[in-house]
Structure formats: C-alpha cells, structure tokens
C-alpha cells in the first residue's frame, strides 16, 4: 500500500499521463499540414492492418482468461469474427459472430 499512495505514485502517474499524451500527439503534432512523401504514405496505409492484428494475436492465441493456455473455443471465436468481418464488412455482424461462436461453443462444451 505504501507504494501506492505516496508522492512517488502521483509523480509516476502524472509522468505516465504526460508521456502517453506526447506519444499520442507525436506525429500528429509534428507533421501538421505538411504533405508527407509518397513512401511514408505508402507505409502508413498499412498501420491499421499491421498494428491491430499484432495487438490481437496474443489475446486470441494465449488468452489471459485461461492463464495463457491456448483455448480452442477462443481460437474458433476469433476465426469466426475474422471471417465474417472480411466477408460481410460489417462490424456488428463480426462482433456477433465472434461472441456468438464463443457462447455457443462454451454452452456445447460445458
């Protein structure tokens, strides 16, 4: 507890908030209205399809809920969301397919 209410805690929290804000601002603040070179734009087009899958992959393959053990139910649910999202191109349909598969398989296997 002592570590969590001293001035150290507050300094760390404010520093973390400020540093995180500066990371969020970074390019958005620096680049401004100037036009980026074509090679940079080409790379930046792939940020969403590179960073979001990298964020998700460990959550699907080694979910925290099962203590990091690969869970076939969550693998199938992730695959269902991916498939429906890519084919139907609809966010709610993909979320429904993913969570629906999760609940259905949990109910069957329970």
């Amino acid at each position: 507890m002592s570590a969590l209410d001293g001035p150290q805690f507050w300094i760390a929290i404010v520093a973390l908030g400020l540093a995180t804000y500066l990371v969020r601002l970074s390019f958005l603040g620096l680049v401004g209205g100037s036009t980026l070179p074509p090679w940079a734009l080409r790379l930046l087009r792939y940020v969403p399809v590179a960073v979001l899958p990298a964020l998700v992959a460990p959550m699907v393959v080694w979910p925290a809920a099962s203590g990091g053990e690969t869970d076939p139910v969550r693998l199938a649910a992730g695959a269902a969301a991916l498939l429906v999202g890519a084919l139907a191109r609809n966010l709610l349909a993909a979320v429904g397919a993913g969570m629906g598969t999760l609940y259905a398989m949990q109910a069957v296997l329970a």
Partner: protein
Amino acid sequence: MTATDAPDSARPRHDAGLRRGFRDGGLAGLPFLVVAIPFGMLFGAVATESGLDLLSTMAMTSIVIAGASQFAFLQLMNDGAPAFAAFGAALAVNLRMAMYSASLAPHLGAAPLRWRLMLAYFNVDQVYAASIARYQDRPAMGLWEKIGFYLGVAAPIFPAWIGGTLAGALVGRGIPPEWSLDFAPAVTFIAVFAPMLRSLAALAACAVSVAAALALSVLPWSLGLPIAGALGMAAGAGAELWLERRAARHAAADAAGDEGSAVDGAGA
C-alpha cells in the same frame, strides 16, 4: 474558430461537416461500449483491491486513459517494483500509439494546432481503429467531417471508460467472468480490421505482423508489438510496390505489343 476571418459562408459548411461526422462517429463508437464498460469496471475494482483510494484511481484512469498500461502499472507497483520501473513498463505498452498518430497525420494533420492538441488526448485504440477504417472507406470525407467522426467515436467511449472505472471502484467487478467479456476486446478489434483486408498487400501486412507478434511475445513490456507492427507495415508497403511494378511491367509489355496506343500510354 475565433482567430480566423473566414467569410460567413464558410462557417456553416465547416460546422455541418463537423456535426454530420460527429453523429456518424457516435454511432460507430457505440459497439465499443461492450469493451469500455466492463474493462473500466475491472480496472476500478482491481485498483481499489490493490489499495488505491478513489481519488487516485479516478485520477489515473482520466490522466492516462490507456487500459493495458494502467493494468501493467498497477501490477508492477503491487509487485513492489520502483515507480520509475512501473512508469517505463507502462509507457512501453503505449508506444503503438505513435504509429496511430502517424497514421492519423495524413487525415487530421491539416487541422489547426490547438485542435490537434485536443484530438491527441482521444487517440486510443478504439477511436483510432474506428476512425481510420472510416477514412480509408470514404476517401472523399472532408477534414472537418473526419474530425467530427473521430470525436464522435470518442464521445460514448470516454465517459463509459471513466464511468465504468468509478462503478468498479465503488461496487466491485460487477460483471461475472462467465460472460467471457475478457474476449470482447479481441473480437471488436478483429471486427474493425477484418473488413480492411481487401488487398494482397493488406493480407501480407496482417500475416507478417501476426507471425512477428507471436514470435516476439517473449520480449518484455509488450515491446514485440511495435516491432511486429513495423514489420507488418514494411511487408504491406513492399508487397504493394512489388504488385504495382509487376502491373506496370505487364502494361508496358502489352503496350509494346500494340504500337498504335503506346504513344498515348507511355507517359502514364
């Protein structure tokens, strides 16, 4: 808005774009409530269980506004790590947001600086993901409609995260683990990026980044994530370039076989 001496006719147009974007963005942000509320509650509950008082919990969740790094920070402080180590680890978890910032720059960079300073605060996973998906889907969107959309997505998510934290701190976890909402973040992120996988280059970016993220997950502090992201971006851009060059070679070969039209087409 105050310093510009734009003609009166310009004002309504910018306001209309902002309003239309905000309304669309608000709708696009709603599905993320299934993530923001339970995870806000979980953070509030875990923070109070760790001995954090209400003020500290709420200050942390509002100043930092980054779930994964808040959990990382709490865990390290609970394990007795020094504050600067917890700070470093939690910040490393947030490095991916520099990539979001760069990716948003071509779309929002033209906004006045004080707008960009404000927009940066809302640059979190869900707001970024939903916004960039819409921007890539609708290249004709104007600057103010893009800004409105971005703020609209944030409008339900931020109060839900902060309110969820407060509820969790006051009443506890609330949502039973049997609901498996632990998996909701993964499913919603997949649902956002899956529709964007519509070219070979995008598929290459995705495949390389997933392989790299899994291989590099042994690295501490989630440092594998920004590295995997960068490798995926390079793979996507490289594949795009290669496909373009191949198409150009084929077009040149076709043009060479068809002397008549070659004069017109060569310049392009």
